[in-house]
């Protein structure tokens, strides 16, 4: 089965100005492959090229060089968008239409047959919590409601690939939770989701893998769990350490004072160069009657990792 998204050596250069032409290299040789069924987050600071990449994939902007396909069909062919849903960051829906009419029109443009639209519209309005607003005009909707009806619009054609640009932007916590639950349900249904967002905590909750863009290039890509893992550092939860432990062990274990642990237990940070070394340490603890509750790799937050990647190194 072809990748849901495949990008190879993609470049985009914007040119403007007639007498003093300026060029902006928005994409500089981007390579990306996204397997079907994944939830993918594209991160990056403002001006990194994220929106340009999404626009190229949707045929809104034309690439200067390189190739891009959706499910094996080149993005330059409008058939590539047959199985795609999209919610832009700054959307403008026809304010004079009701929510039901708007979904009907966009469904029609997405080639959804009339009989499917008739059942799909109430179903989607229910899923985004807007059933009671079906006959209300879009012009009277709040920002959060617009975002939710926009998401319903993106789902009208039951897409296999969903592009969401800042999907929870301007949505209150309850609405954000509803959107997140919907995305999790879509993920479980096998929909590939491509999220472009600044809200790293939201991305962390929904996405399995992320890529970080900076200055038109993809600088990091991988599973969140792999990217945020701190190399060879572990969090250990165990009973109190006896005083007669060898000094070498004490040196490699430091208390995690700001972490709470169940009663009678404490949390420690353990540094270990190799797997053998870690196992030897555990053996020593067990030999001194220390009872281990849990041991797992130390992780940073996605935000800490993101800032490390995109911030220039200190002089």
């Amino acid at each position, binding site marked *: 089965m072809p990748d849901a998204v495949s990008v190879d050596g993609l470049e985009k250069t914007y040119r403007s100005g007639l007498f003093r032409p300026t060029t902006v290299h928005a994409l500089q040789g981007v390579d990306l492959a996204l397997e079907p069924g994944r939830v993918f987050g594209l991160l990056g600071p403002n001006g990194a090229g994220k929106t340009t990449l999404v626009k190229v994939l949707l045929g809104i902007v034309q690439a200067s060089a390189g190739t891009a396909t959706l499910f094996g069909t080149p993005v330059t062919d409008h058939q590539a968008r047959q199985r795609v849903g999209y919610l832009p960051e700054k959307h403008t829906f026809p304010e004079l239409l009701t929510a039901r009419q708007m979904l009907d029109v*966009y469904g029609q443009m997405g080639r959804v047959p009339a009989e499917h639209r008739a059942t799909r519209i109430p179903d989607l309005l229910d899923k985004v919590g807007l059933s009671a607003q079906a006959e209300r005009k879009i012009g009277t909707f709040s920002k959060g409601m617009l975002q939710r009806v926009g998401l319903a619009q993106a789902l009208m054609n039951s897409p296999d690939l969903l592009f969401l640009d800042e999907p929870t932007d301007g949505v209150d916590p309850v609405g954000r939770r509803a959107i997140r639950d919907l995305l999790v349900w879509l993920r479980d249904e096998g929909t590939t989701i491509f999220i472009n967002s600044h809200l790293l905590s939201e991305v962390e909750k929904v996405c399995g893998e992320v890529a970080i863009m900076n200055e038109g290039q993809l600088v990091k890509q991988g599973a969140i769990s792999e990217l945020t893992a701190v190399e060879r550092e572990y969090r250990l939860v165990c009973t109190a350490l006896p005083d007669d432990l060898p000094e070498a062990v004490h040196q490699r274990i430091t208390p995690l004072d700001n972490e709470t642990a169940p009663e009678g237990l404490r949390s420690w940070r353990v540094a270990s160069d190799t797997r053998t070394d870690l196992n030897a340490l555990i053996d020593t603890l067990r030999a001194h009657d220390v009872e281990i509750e849990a041991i797992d790799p130390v992780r940073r937050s996605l935000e800490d990792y993101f800032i490390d990647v995109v911030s220039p190194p200190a002089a």
Partner: protein
Amino acid sequence: MQPTLGLIYLTFRELWAKKVVLGLFLISSLLLVMVAFALNLDVVDGSLAGLRLFGQAPGTMEGLSLEKLVFGVEAAVAGAAYWLGILLALFATAPLIVSMLERGHIDLLLSKPMSRSTLFLSHVAGVWAAVAVLTVYLLGGVWAIMSIKTGVWNGSFLISIGLVVVMFGVMYSTVALMGVWTESTALALIVSYGLIFASLVLAGHEAIVAELGLVGSTAFNVLYHILPNFAEVTTMVANLSRAEPVSSWYPLTSSVLFGLVAYALATWQFVRRDF
């Protein structure tokens, strides 16, 4: 076909929401009511025996035949629909192109599975269809009421309905081209109204060319042949309304060619540009 129908419907709804289109509809309805109820004709054996407008009889009816009256009313309505109707329709529809290109709206439209040319031409078709409906409502209504009241069925008047719609389409091509190119409604309207004004000058090309030198006359002739002959088509509309023969269809042909070229350029620009 589905995306096209969806876009046409959307364009209809957007136009209907504009007050100018609603105003045009109300004015048309008022005119139809006037023709239906305020214009009282007494027809005896196929001849005009009496005429009252708002209950008042005109000073004299000498030399006024029933046919002349019908043709006169129809020509007046067609002339008004041609000039005033097209100018107002351009004013009402011009913002639609630019609003379609707004960020957040165009992104959504382009993400749908249809080609860019289909998207653009469907939008244009929606505008044409809306203007055609209004024109048929006004001119068709006047034609039907006058024909039923008098028994004079002026078939050639119906062709003028087509002319009004086609010439709106020709002038809208300029709005579409300038809209896609500059994203400025004001500039699009200035250029299309400018071409209508220029057509008034070009209509007198035979007399003007005779007064010019070789370079001037050549330039003037080129402009006459490449720009839309909006003013000259007025004569055709009037002739058809009066059931008179049209001496030359050239002004219409050259205008339609201009429109086709402008639409082709607008589509090309829409297909190639980034949004």
